[in-house]
């Protein structure tokens, strides 16, 4: 039996230590969690994401109290009850709507930071994989949430996206009906997506966030130079008071102060959007109630799915589906396709530098084309951009294999 001091006061530090080892926990999680000095504000995006996720969770709980998940009531419960009856209901909705949109912007920044600095490589593969898994889960979360107000875009996006599961020429209509629980998006569809949105997917997200953080603890966070050094040695220096010579700082309180500063700036922008420009996250078409006998003239997804939608669109159905599937999984393979030995910023890596910027620009291009109606010159540009996207990934292993060791 472990040693328990009889004289210690309940809930004092000592008392908790004997039962929960809180001092040790603090060391592991914060005061002796070492962060390299040499990282810039882009590394704060992880914490920004965590903060945004917290906002989504809290605002979601308040929306949940008045939302009605039935096809008759859903639209009004959002657009009337929450927006005009519930006091400050609009606030939760705007936080939720803006958060859902902005979270993807931050995810993309986070992702491309990782790609730029090679943070997905050697030893950090699980961080990358769990991060990509989070991206997929957030996509599922966003899509299922988009269904809930049961507006025209909700309905038709639900129709189009679930139709993708028929697999083009495979005509797997039975599968599509199984997913929907009906022949078209209806009550069964709404209820199950409601369940996914408020329970199953968030639960999975929280689990994978824990994994993502855990995967970071051992290989440690990368730095701006991709420099490899001995964290333990550096930590000893820091603890011995040689802060200047040491290459690391403790997460709490030193690094956290920087994180919190970035989060502070971010929140100013975030709440500026919430209060003054929430409409960018709300599609006007979704203010018409769902109508199964009328399609909106132009169906498109939210901005963060446009690039992958545009990879699908310019091809014939089957080719398009294959290309779409390719776009969904290819990022997962990044650490294994990269054949170069270097962990360094793209700017020092030879051809990879051009590859990185080409990919980024191409994806922005795809995003714009995905929003425009697929006519004339736009569909040509979309086709070219989609082909470039695929070509870039095919060229990737070759480009990185030619890279010389730095």
């Amino acid at each position: 039996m472990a040693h328990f001091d009889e004289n210690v006061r309940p809930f004092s530090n000592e008392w908790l230590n004997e039962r929960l080892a809180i001092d040790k926990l603090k060391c592991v999680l914060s005061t002796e969690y070492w962060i390299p000095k040499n990282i810039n504000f882009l590394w704060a995006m992880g914490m920004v994401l965590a903060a945004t996720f917290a906002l989504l969770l809290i605002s979601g709980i308040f929306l949940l109290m008045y939302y009605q998940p039935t096809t008759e009531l859903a639209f009004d419960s959002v657009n009337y009850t929450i927006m005009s009856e519930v006091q400050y209901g609009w606030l939760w909705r705007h936080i939720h709507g803006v958060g859902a949109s902005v979270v993807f912007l931050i995810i993309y920044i986070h992702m491309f930071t990782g790609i730029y600095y090679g943070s997905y490589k050697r030893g950090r593969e699980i961080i990358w994989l769990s991060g990509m898994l989070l991206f997929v889960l957030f996509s599922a979360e966003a899509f299922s949430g988009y269904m809930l107000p049961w507006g025209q875009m909700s309905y038709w996006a639900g129709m189009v996206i679930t139709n993708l599961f028929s697999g083009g020429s495979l005509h797997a209509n039975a599968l599509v009906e199984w997913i929907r629980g009906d022949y078209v998006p209806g009550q069964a569809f709404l209820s199950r997506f409601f369940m996914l949105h408020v329970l199953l997917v968030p639960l999975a997200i929280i689990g994978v966030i824990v994994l993502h953080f855990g995967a970071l603890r051992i290989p440690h966070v990368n730095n701006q130079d991709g420099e490899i050094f001995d964290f333990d040695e550096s930590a000893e220096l820091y603890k011995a008071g040689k802060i200047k010579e040491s290459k690391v700082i403790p997460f709490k309180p030193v690094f956290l102060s920087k994180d919190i500063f970035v989060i502070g700036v971010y929140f100013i922008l975030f709440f500026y959007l919430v209060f003054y420009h929430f409409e960018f996250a709300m599609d006007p078409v979704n203010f018409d109630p769902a109508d199964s006998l009328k399609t909106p003239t132009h169906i498109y997804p939210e901005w963060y799915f446009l690039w992958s939608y545009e990879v699908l669109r310019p091809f014939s159905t089957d080719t398009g589906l294959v290309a779409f599937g390719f776009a969904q999984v290819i990022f997962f393979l990044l650490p294994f396709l990269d054949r170069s030995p270097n962990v360094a910023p793209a700017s020092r890596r030879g051809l990879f530098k051009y590859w990185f910027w080409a990919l980024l620009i191409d994806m922005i291009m795809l995003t714009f084309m995905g929003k425009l109606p697929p006519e004339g010159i736009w569909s040509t540009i979309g086709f070219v951009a989609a082909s470039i996207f695929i070509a870039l990934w095919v060229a990737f292993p070759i480009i990185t294999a030619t890279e010389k060791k730095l």
Partner: protein
Amino acid sequence: MANNNKDRRDFMGMALGGFTALGGVGALYAMKCTWDVLPSVKTAGFTTLNMKDYKENELVVEKWRGKPIFVLKQSPEMVEKLKKEKPDDLKRLIKVGNGYYTVCIGLCTHLGCIPGFRPETSDFLCACHGGQYDVTAQVTKAPPPRGLDVPPFKIEGEKLVLGEEGPEYKKMLEDGITIQA
């Protein structure tokens, strides 16, 4: 003795593994079935159309299984014209009594938008990505990969029951005129 013990543990491990796998498969099966389409939704999936009600060259949109159904009665002139110009498309029409009808699911086979009927040109245009269909709902301009699908139907006198598969519908499937919707 030690060996003996190991054998026992192995056996327990395998037994536990086996039962867990069995239970897992059972649970997955139950989950799959729970997610299935409800019987009440399935039984409600029939619609009867009275074909005498339709007028020539006037598109009527009905509803079957929540999907829009286009019904268009063809004029005798149109039927003659099709016989001459597009005899293959004629097979897409359903003959009830003396009338010929275009009956199809009004969801574009590309990505599922609802195409609009243009009486002036007697064709359908899907505004989403510019797909076009002729008067029998056969595709004439990509991206849609095929004509609009014909819902399963059964002819009962002057009536058409959607959701049941009559011999005429099965023939259409065999001929590759439509796919199982």
